[in-house]
C-alpha cells in the first residue's frame, strides 16, 4: 500500500462548494502547503471549518470562502488576524461563529456519525442569535434541561499536517499538542495528511513514543511529503513560527500595494517548491 501523492492530487479531489476541515490551531501546525495549493486553484464557494489562523486569513483574502465555521481566527503572536478581520468587516463571507468547545462537539458528533450532541455552551450568548439554524433539544430525563443540539460538522475533506508520516498513512506529531487533527479526520469523507518527512513505519519509535503516532492509517486517504509545509506557522520541534515572515504577511493587510508585492513574491509561485525557494531567498536578505 502506498498513499503518497502531491498537493495537486488533493486539489483534484476537491470541488467547488465542498466543506473543508483544516487541522492545527491558530498559527500552529497548519497544513499550509495544501492551503497554498487551494489558493493557486480555481476552487470557490468553500465552507471552511477551522480553529483559525492564517489558513482562514488567506482563504478569505482570496475570496475562496462562502462560509467560515470557527471559534476564533488568530496568529497567536499577533492576536487578531488582519486579513480575516478585513474580510469580516467587508461582510464578504457568512460567519458561523461558535464557542471553541462547540466546534469540537460538532466535529465529535460527525466523528461518531451522530446527528448532534447536546451542548450547554452557547446558551444565553449571541452564538444562538448569530447561528439561527442551531436547534434545541430537551433532556428526556428528570432534569428536563433545554440544551443546544450541536449539529454534526460533517466534512467532505480534512487537511492536516504532521511532523512525520509513513506511506501507509500513519502520522506522528512531535510537538506538545495533537490539537483536533484526529477529529477532523474522523469527521471527513476524504482525509489528506501532509508531513515534514515520510519515514519507514519502523522508524516512528526512533522519533517519539508510540503515543505520538496519533493518526493511524484508517484515518487517512493520502499522504503528501511537504518539508516546510506548515510555514509560516510553527511546527515544533522541526521549526518554530517564522515571526518575521508572519509580521510581513500581517502588515500587507493595510496596504494593497504591499499585498500585491507579497502575493507576487511568494504565493503566485507555480508550486510549493517555488514558494519554499522564495521564502529561503527572502530569509537571506532579511
Amino acid at each position, binding site marked *: 500500500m502506498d498513499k503518497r501523492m502531491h498537493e495537486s492530487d488533493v486539489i483534484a479531489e476537491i470541488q467547488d462548494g465542498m466543506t473543508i476541515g483544516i487541522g492545527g490551531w491558530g498559527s500552529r501546525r497548519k497544513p499550509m502547503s495544501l492551503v497554498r495549493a487551494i489558493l493557486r486553484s480555481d476552487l470557490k464557494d468553500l465552507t471552511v471549518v477551522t480553529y483559525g489562523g492564517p489558513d482562514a486569513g488567506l482563504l478569505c483574502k482570496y475570496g475562496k470562502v462562502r462560509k467560515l465555521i470557527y471559534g476564533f481566527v488568530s496568529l497567536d503572536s499577533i492576536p487578531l488576524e488582519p486579513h480575516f478581520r478585513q474580510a469580516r468587516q467587508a*461582510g464578504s463571507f457568512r460567519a458561523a461563529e461558535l464557542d471553541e468547545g462547540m466546534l469540537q462537539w460538532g466535529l465529535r458528533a460527525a466523528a461518531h456519525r451522530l446527528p448532534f450532541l447536546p451542548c450547554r455552551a452557547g*446558551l444565553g450568548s*449571541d452564538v444562538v442569535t*448569530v447561528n439561527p439554524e442551531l436547534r434545541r433539544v430537551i433532556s428526556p430525563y428528570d432534569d428536563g*434541561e*433545554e440544551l443546544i443540539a450541536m449539529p454534526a460538522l460533517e466534512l467532505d475533506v480534512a487537511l492536516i499536517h504532521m511532523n512525520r508520516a509513513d506511506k501507509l498513512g500513519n502520522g506522528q506529531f512531535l510537538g506538545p499538542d495533537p490539537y483536533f487533527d484526529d477529529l477532523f479526520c474522523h469527521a471527513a469523507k476524504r482525509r489528506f495528511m501532509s508531513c515534514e518527512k515520510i519515514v519507514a513505519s519502523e522508524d516512528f519509535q526512533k522519533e517519539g513514543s508510540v503515543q505520538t503516532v496519533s493518526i493511524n492509517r484508517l484515518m487517512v486517504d493520502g499522504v503528501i511529503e511537504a518539508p516546510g509545509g506548515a510555514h509560516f506557522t510553527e511546527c515544533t520541534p522541526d521549526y518554530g513560527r517564522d515571526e518575521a515572515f508572519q509580521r510581513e504577511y500581517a502588515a500587507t493587510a493595510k496596504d494593497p500595494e504591499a499585498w500585491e508585492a507579497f502575493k507576487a513574491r511568494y504565493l503566485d509561485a507555480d508550486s510549493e517548491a517555488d514558494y519554499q525557494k522564495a521564502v529561503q531567498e527572502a530569509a537571506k536578505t532579511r
Partner: protein
Amino acid sequence: MSEITRAEVCAVAIAEAFRDDGETLMSAFGTTPTVGGRLAKLTFAPDLFMTDGIATGIESVPPVSGPPRDDLVKSAWMPFRLFFDNVVWTTNRHVMMMASQIDQYGNQNFACIGPHEKPKAQLLGMRGAPGNTLYHATSYFVPNHSAKVFVEKVDVVSGVGYDRAAALGETTSRFHDIRRVVSNLGVFDFATPDNRMRLVSVHPGVGVEDVVANTAFELVIEGDVPETRTPSDEELHLIRDVLDPEGLINKEVRD
C-alpha cells in the same frame, strides 16, 4: 521603593480575585491578569494550578516575559482538548478574560464591535467565552475604563451575564459565576439582590465620581466606597523583581 503604580494596584486586585479559589485552574489572559494570578499563587493561594500557556501544567511560577525557559517544572500534559474534557466543561477553573465591552449584568463582548453580520471592527471572536461563563468562575479585566467599555448594551454577547443566565433557569445556570471585574479605576462585583454591578473599591487617586463619569450605566454604590488596598512590600518585590522585571504591566495600565 519607588511609588506604587496603578498597574501594581490592579495586579494585587486581580490576585485578590483568586484568593479563595483553592485548587483550581487559574487562567488569566493579558499581561496584568497573568502577573496578578501568579502573584496570588506565590502568596495566599498556593494551591492554584496553572499552565505554561502552551500544553503543560506547571508547578513553577515563571515571569511574564523573557525567552522560553527550560527550567519549568512540568507536571501534567494539558493540550487544548483537555480544556474542554478536563477543566472547562468539568467546571474546575477560574478564568480572567478581557472585555472590550461589558454591561451592568456582566454580559461581555470581545467578539466584534457593530453588527455581527458586518462588524465595524472584528475582534477575537467568541473564543471560549460562551462556555466559560456557563461552566466556571469568570472574572474580567479592563485596562482602559471608559463609557465605551462599560456600556448600556454590548454589541454582541460572548460572555453571558447574570440577567441572561437567570433567564436560562436554575439548572442551566448553576455553575454561572461572574466573580469580579477589575479595571484601571476600581474593583467591581455583582453581589447585589438583582446581580447588577456594584462598585467595591476605587483605586488610590481615583474618585467615585471618576468611575461614575466613565460608566454608561448606573452602578450600585453603597455608602462610602473604600480604597483598593495597595501592594505590600513583599508583593511589590514579587511583581517588580520576580514576575514582571521589565515592568510590562505599566504599559498595559497607565498611571
